[in-house]
């Protein structure tokens, strides 16, 4: 493979790394923050399942992102992923839980504006509406699940120690499911912009099946996510748990499950076809923000408890961060593309036709 290709892919790997450091912390943050799961265990499970989710079920959400703006030159993909990664990095430094989802959408629109490509309004509206639906859905699922779980615990009356052991096991399972869903849903953010310009070629694996170029691309991105998890997510995990609302281990489990369900429904092709065959409206396969899902879930539990203890000021800051992230990424991408094209003489788009 060309060294230049690897260089261009590096921004995607940087974005993957920041997703691993930031978004993956949402999956195990509450479990590690409440010291129910050791960081080493969390990092190992998270890395493996993020990779599995990305390679096995990552393509659904990637297609929607591709419709928003099919970046058709490696230089453009490099700048879109790079500016999204920078925006996420800046927001993380500011202490706000943002997601690569918001950043990459802003960056793609920045590329569309720079290249004069029209943005598919229907896709944009679908994506933007999920940013509202995602936290609301997570809040609803978390509130219902929390009520159900506490009711079951109250009637089962487990010993404090046994409840602790079950909660630990449940947190590990939910974390694995969460990491899988995160990989499936969010790999599109990391590698989606490289799909149209993928430098890999499809090959057969010992008669088992084909390993497509997109899957290879996703595997590379997922490895970058895993590296992010292992190298940088510990600090984020320790601060995620209990920042917005002090949480019990059971509430922590509910948050992880609600987050994972939301990410799963927005990336599952199986669920989509199931709904289709039943004649029900389908859920769009869109990369949603894991941070929005987690914040929504925490809020759902907080509201169920009567809203006391929720730090509304922090919540307002998080909301502003969500709005600012795509704008920052979009502007960065636009300015970056200008320099890449005019100063470094790189091809950032292929004119259509």
């Amino acid at each position: 493979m060309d060294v230049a290709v690897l260089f261009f892919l590096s921004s995607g790997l940087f974005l993957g790394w920041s997703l691993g450091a930031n978004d993956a912390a949402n999956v195990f943050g509450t479990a590690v923050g409440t010291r129910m799961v050791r960081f080493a265990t969390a990092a190992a499970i998270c890395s493996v399942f993020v990779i599995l989710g990305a390679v096995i079920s990552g393509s659904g959400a990637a297609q929607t992102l591709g419709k928003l703006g099919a970046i058709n030159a490696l230089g453009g993909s490099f700048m879109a992923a790079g500016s999204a990664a920078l925006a996420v990095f800046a927001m993380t430094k500011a202490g706000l839980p943002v997601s690569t989802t918001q950043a990459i959408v802003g960056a793609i629109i920045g590329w569309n504006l720079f290249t004069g490509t029209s943005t598919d309004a229907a896709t944009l509206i679908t994506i933007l509406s999920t940013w509202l639906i995602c936290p609301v859905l997570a809040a609803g699922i978390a509130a219902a699940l929390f009520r159900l779980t506490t009711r079951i615990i109250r009637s089962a009356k487990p010993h404090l120690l046994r409840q602790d052991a079950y909660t630990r096991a449940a947190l590990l399972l939910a974390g694995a499911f969460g990491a899988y869903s995160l990989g499936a849903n969010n790999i599109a953010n990391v590698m989606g912009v490289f799909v149209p310009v993928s430098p890999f070629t499809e090959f057969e694996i010992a008669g088992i099946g084909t390993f497509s170029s997109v899957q290879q691309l996703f595997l590379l991105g997922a490895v970058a996510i895993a590296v992010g998890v292992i190298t940088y997510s510990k600090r984020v995990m320790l601060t995620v748990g209990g920042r917005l609302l002090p949480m019990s281990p059971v509430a922590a489990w509910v948050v992880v499950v609600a987050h994972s369900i939301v990410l799963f429904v927005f990336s599952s092709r199986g669920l989509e076809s199931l709904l289709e065959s039943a004649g029900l409206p389908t859920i769009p396969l869109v990369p949603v923000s894991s941070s929005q899902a987690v914040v929504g879930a925490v809020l759902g539990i907080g509201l169920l408890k009567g809203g006391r203890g929720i730090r509304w000021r922090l919540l307002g800051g998080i909301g502003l961060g969500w709005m600012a992230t795509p704008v920052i990424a979009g502007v960065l991408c636009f300015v970056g593309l200008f320099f890449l094209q005019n100063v470094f003489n790189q091809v950032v788009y292929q004119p259509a036709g």
Partner: protein
Amino acid sequence: MAAKESMLGRGLLPFRRTKALESEIDAFLDKLSESGLLFKRAVQIYLEEGASAEFDQKLQAVNRLESEADKLRRSVITQLYTQTLIPESRGDVLGLLENLDSLLGLYEGALWSFSIEQPEISAEFHGDYATLCDQVVHAAEAIVLASRAFFRNIEAVGDHMHKVMFYEKEADKVSTKLKRAIFATDLPLYRKAHLRNFVEHIDNVADRAEDVADRLAIYTIKRSF
């Protein structure tokens, strides 16, 4: 197959360990409860026969239970901390077990005082001493039940807590009445003071039970989901 079984065994190990630890906590509470019954019986024997061989036997039994409970408490706390179990509540469990253990210390201390100092208690006070003993052991028994509920059925803690408060108040009433009666007699002051000390030795158990109940109330709020 064997490998699969050992994997399963390893997988279930945390649950096995948890069960063993649950039994240790239960055994600790059993020992506290049994000590209360022995304490009551020992005081009764003392009132009837003085520091007899049977009294001494009960004292030794409480002594033995106290050291066994100490071992259990240390084992439970060590396991909680080395295996990082119940990270949210282990500090509270540590405090609870230490406070409950101090009740055992009070039983043992009071009986040793009876054995060493051998107070002369006139028959007119026997009834009140026995009642006081009854009330404080009831208070301690209620805190044992509240503690069991803290581990097994958090919502039932309140059902036992109010009984601790009730018996503590009753014990206070009896001890005040008894002290007044002691100081109203013609006994020399040193004997009055001696008898009063024994009222306090016994009444301290109920006071400590109430202190434990106050802490347990906070631990219970913290344990809510």
